[in-house]
Each structure stands twice: as structure tokens, then as C-alpha cells.
């Protein structure tokens, strides 16, 4: 069987093989990042063994609310999207781009070396795979390729995990990004728990994934395994905590720029920027120049920025988006409408993080639905007139 592993090949792993997987990745020089419990949440961080995984925990998510609860079934991956996405590893919150040094006859500039650790992401959900694909397009496919991102990205090994339960703010089905990981992984796993046995259905997504799977103790699949995995994904798809009707949404939003709903949501919006920070596709940055006290050296630093800050839209003479309504409208219409004009797909993958991690629980699906509902009322009354 080992000899015939190719993309699309499937095999069954015991739950013990998870440890073997982590060890094999580490042996290949990867730093393994995966889910673990920290500060009352399931976060993505460095893991050393399968014992670090959040077995025994599930998350409970709603608009502006997150908490952990115990679970009895021993599932390693029985939770939904975490507080932050994998973005921070590929697109770090702060990076020094270059530094300059004063010399007797001028100055020299040195480019900052990009540290390129080999990272293995364990437990990437379908929505986050789609988000990574979106950031790949943003950073690598335009005229101004981000070499630092591209270099980091090329060194990542991705183990996807198909979701066995949806979170309270999930809507990947609406965005057609999940719950099953179809592409963009080296290896994907579906956790199979039937009360007596704890196994994983593994699927190969790349040559590197095939080679890794061949190293792990595995068994051939049976029809029952495949049916069980399909049933899990079907069941997850039915559990979506949120729904977003995307039919004609781009045109609807772009025709609703003066809608009163923007003012209404602005009364609840804190302009804190949390939604943009937790969004796995939001990519905006600012740059800062720092100088030393002696005036001999300087650094040029790139940092995550947010369209909810005033400086973000500052042009000569002042900020363009001074109202909360303008800032929220900018963010939401970019995600769901103008992103399509810019990059060919929406900038939203339905992970639900912006809903869960908004301190006042503003729900992008609810805001879109409210605008749609009022437009429908308007069309009906227009039609009747």
C-alpha cells in the first residue's frame, strides 16, 4: 500500500498514530503547531505530543461569547475555529523590513533576513485552508509579490482536520469553504469516534503528505470508514450556527452604501478592530519608522493595521472615514463585495471569528440579512406602487 500513495489516497490511522505523526513531522525538522488549551481557549501554539491536544474540551461560541466545556468522548479535535487563525504564523503581526545605519559618507540599508522556520500546521479547518488560499492570492499573485510571505508559505506542511461539529458562529457552508477540506492540504484527517474505537480517516493531498502517511502505521479503508466520515461531514454541515445568503449579495451591498443600517450598526460598533485582527483573510498593514536616540540607526517596521483606525484612512488633511458607520461599511463591503472585484472571491470564509470575538457581538450575517430584508421590503413596496 505504501508504494501506491498519491493525492486522493486514503487510509485509516489509529488514534495512537497521531503521536507518530507529530514525531515524524518533528523528525523532518518541522516545528509542529496545533490546538492546545491556553487561557480558557483552544489556541494554535507549539505542541510536542498528542498529549498537548485539547482532548476532553469543546468550545461554546456565540456572538461576543466564547467558553470551553468538558467533553466525554476523548475527541482530539472536537472544537471549532480558535480565537486567532493561522494568519499570525504566515503574516506575522510585526516584521522589521529593513534597517539603516549612518556611515561617515552617507548611510547603508540592510534588508532584514526573513526567518523561515519549517512549520507544520496540525488541525487546519476547511475555512482556514480557504483563508490561506485567499492570502496566497493577495500576497503572491499580484504585481507586488510579498517574498517574505511566499518563503514562509513554501515551508509549511498542512495537516487539515475535517470538522466533526460546527461552532455557534460558523457559516462555512454559506461561503462554500467547508466543512470538508477539499484542497490545499498535505494530509487531511477525519476523526472517527464510534464509542468503542477512536480512529482517523486520512486522505493524501500532496506528495509530501503521501510520503508522511506511508511512514505511519495505517490500515486500508473500508466502506464503513468512508461512510462514517461522510456522515460526520454531512452532520457538521447541518449544524452551522449561522447562515449567510450570498445570492446577489455583492450587488446588494454595493447598491446600499447609504443604507440606514450602517448608522445603526455603528451605534454598537466599538471601532476596536478586533474583527479585522481575528479575520484569517484581513491582510492590511501599516509601516513605522523608528530611529535610535543617537541618530545613527533606523528601522522600518511593518505591523498589522485595521481599517477601523483613523490613521488607516488618513490622507493629507485628515482621515477619510471619520464615522463608525463609514468604517464598518468599508470593512463589510470589502469582505463580501469589493473583495470579489479585487481578487475574484469574497474575502470571507465563514469561520465566524469576527462574530465570536466582537466584544459587542456584531454579526456580519445578521447585518447582511438586515440590509437584504429592507431591500426586499423596498422592492415589494416599489412593485406595489
Amino acid at each position, binding site marked *: 500500500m505504501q508504494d501506491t500513495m498519491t493525492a486522493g489516497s486514503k487510509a485509516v490511522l489509529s488514534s495512537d498514530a497521531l503521536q507518530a505523526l507529530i514525531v515524524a513531522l518533528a523528525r523532518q525538522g518541522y516545528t509542529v503547531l496545533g490546538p492546545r488549551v491556553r487561557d480558557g481557549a483552544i489556541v494554535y501554539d507549539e505542541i510536542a505530543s498528542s498529549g498537548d491536544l485539547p482532548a476532553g474540551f469543546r468550545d461554546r461560541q456565540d456572538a461576543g461569547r466564547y467558553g470551553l466545556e468538558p467533553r466525554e468522548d476523548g475527541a482530539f479535535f472536537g472544537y471549532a475555529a480558535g480565537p486567532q487563525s493561522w494568519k499570525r504564523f504566515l503574516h506575522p503581526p510585526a516584521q522589521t523590513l529593513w534597517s539603516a545605519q549612518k556611515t561617515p559618507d552617507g548611510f547603508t540599508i540592510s534588508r532584514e533576513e526573513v526567518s523561515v522556520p519549517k512549520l507544520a500546521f496540525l488541525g487546519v479547518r476547511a475555512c482556514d485552508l480557504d483563508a490561506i488560499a485567499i492570502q496566497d492570492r493577495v500576497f503572491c499573485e499580484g504585481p507586488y509579490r510579498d517574498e517574505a510571505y511566499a518563503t514562509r508559505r513554501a515551508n509549511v506542511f498542512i495537516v487539515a482536520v475535517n470538522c466533526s461539529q460546527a461552532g455557534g458562529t460558523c457559516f462555512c457552508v454559506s461561503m462554500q469553504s467547508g466543512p470538508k477540506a477539499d484542497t490545499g492540504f498535505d494530509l487531511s484527517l477525519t476523526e472517527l469516534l464510534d464509542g468503542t474505537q477512536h480512529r482517523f480517516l486520512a486522505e493524501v493531498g500532496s506528495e509530501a503528505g503521501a510520503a508522511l502517511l506511508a511512514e505511519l502505521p495505517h490500515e486500508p479503508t473500508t466502506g464503513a470508514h468512508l461512510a462514517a466520515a461522510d456522515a460526520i461531514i454531512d452532520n457538521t454541515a447541518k449544524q452551522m450556527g449561522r447562515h449567510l445568503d450570498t445570492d446577489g449579495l455583492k450587488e446588494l451591498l454595493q447598491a446600499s452604501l447609504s443604507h440606514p443600517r450602517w448608522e445603526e450598526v455603528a451605534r454598537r*460598533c466599538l471601532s476596536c478592530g478586533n474583527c479585522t485582527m481575528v479575520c484569517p483573510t484581513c491582510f492590511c498593514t501599516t509601516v513605522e519608522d523608528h530611529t535610535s536616540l543617537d541618530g545613527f540607526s533606523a528601522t522600518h517596521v511593518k505591523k498589522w493595521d485595521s481599517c477601523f483606525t*483613523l490613521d488607516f484612512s488618513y490622507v493629507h488633511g485628515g482621515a477619510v472615514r471619520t464615522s463608525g458607520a463609514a468604517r464598518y461599511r468599508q470593512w463589510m463591503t470589502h469582505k463580501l463585495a469589493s473583495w470579489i472585484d479585487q481578487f475574484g472571491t469574497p474575502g470571507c470564509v465563514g469561520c465566524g471569528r469576527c462574530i465570536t470575538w466582537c*466584544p459587542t457581538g456584531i454579526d456580519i450575517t445578521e447585518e447582511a440579512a438586515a440590509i437584504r430584508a429592507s431591500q426586499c421590503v423596498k422592492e415589494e413596496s416599489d412593485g406595489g406602487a
Partner: protein
Amino acid sequence: MTARPRPRLAVWKFASCDGCQLSLLDCEDELLAVAGAVEIANFPEASSAISDGPYDLSLVEGSVTTAHDAERILEVRKQSKFLVTIGACATAGGIQALRNFADVGEFISAVYARPDYIKTLATSTPISAHVPVDLELRGCPIDKGQLIEVLSAILAGRKPNIAAYSVCIECKRRNTVCVMVQGTPCLGPATHAGCGAICPSFRRGCYGCFGPMETPNTAALAHEWELLGASPQEIVRSFRSFNCAAEAFRKESEAHGI
């Protein structure tokens, strides 16, 4: 370059606890570089060698609470090319601005054996209420990294990188899990960044030491606090601390009927 005279620095104290000017002395790693870059011309807390003005840069700590100080700040302004206020007292009036919500005469008679010895104003006001201020550095106390940033920027003739957005952005950059979403009331979403989001990293809500952020929606934040179970009294007290006299925090504290 070495022939150029060093800019002259003065540090002034008004009604305050000295914590912010101590932040300058606390810049252990950078202190020698600071002393090399500027002439410390007037800094009584650090040296008894005091030179007369004018000064290129004045750091002003503390609020104005006496008629004497209201006069003194005018002279400081006259003597200073750049005037930068440091900390919540100088920038918002400080914790002592709680007097603005009460009758200072009653405080004096309750606290002092000889109230007639006390000459004080009815209010504590920020430096900007008295003279034009070039830059306000927030915090109770200020962040020494921000102080060094301001000094470096002024020396280089560039704009300092002092962001006015929320503490949340600092929280997210440092990968702290949001305490508010997990049920702990936090002032971070309405509070000016600068501290590096210290309290949430210790699983505490933000206390608002840096005062209101650039576009504070305190009403929406206070409403969310209510949903998390905070009483009106807790909301009033949270907005009414070191930055109680900052406009946005003052108004919110007055909106809860206590």
C-alpha cells in the same frame, strides 16, 4: 555632528505622584543614550544642577490644582520650544480630578485639621486646559518605550509612532485571548493603546490607564458591561479613575445615574 549642541531637556512636576518622570529614570538601558542625546538642563528629581531656560523640550507631569500652578505652567510654556505632557494627570487631570465631581471644600474640611492652610482650586485640570500642548503621552504611568520613542522622534525631527487606536489591537498582536468575550468586563475596546495590553495578558480586564482611544464608543461598551453583569456603580467607577476627567470617560461615568 558631534559639534551640534544637544537639545536642552526640562522635566516639570505639577500635581502628580512622580511616577511618570520616574519612567525616564527607569529607562535603564537607554538612560546613557538619553543623557548623550540631550542636555538634561532641568530635572530636579534626577539632579540638583539646574540650568535656566529656554528649553528645547519640556516634559510636563501632573495636573493643575492650584492658582500658583496655573501661573507656573504659563512660564513653562514660554520657556519651552516643545511641550509634551506625560501621563494621565497632565493629559486628563488624573485621579485627583475626582474632585471635579464633588465639593472640594467638603474634602478639605474632612481631611485637614486646619482647612484654612489649604489653598486649592475646585478642579484638577490637564495642562492643555491652560496652554497649547505639542504632544500628549498617555498612561498611568506612561510607557517608557513610548517616552523613548517620543524623544527619538523629536531628536530626528519625525512624527512619533504613538497609535491612538484601541488596546484590542495590541492584545491581538500579542496573541492574548480576549477576556471580555470570555466574560470579564474590560475597558480595552474604548481605551487608547500604548501600554502593550498588559492587564489582559494577565487575564484581567483593562483599567483604562491610557484614557479614551481616538473614537471611543463608551456607551456601547458600557451596555455590553451591563450584559456581562456589571452594576451601574461598577461602570461608573471604572470610567471614573485615572482618566475620569477625560471627556469621553467623564460623560459615560455621568450617564449611569450615580
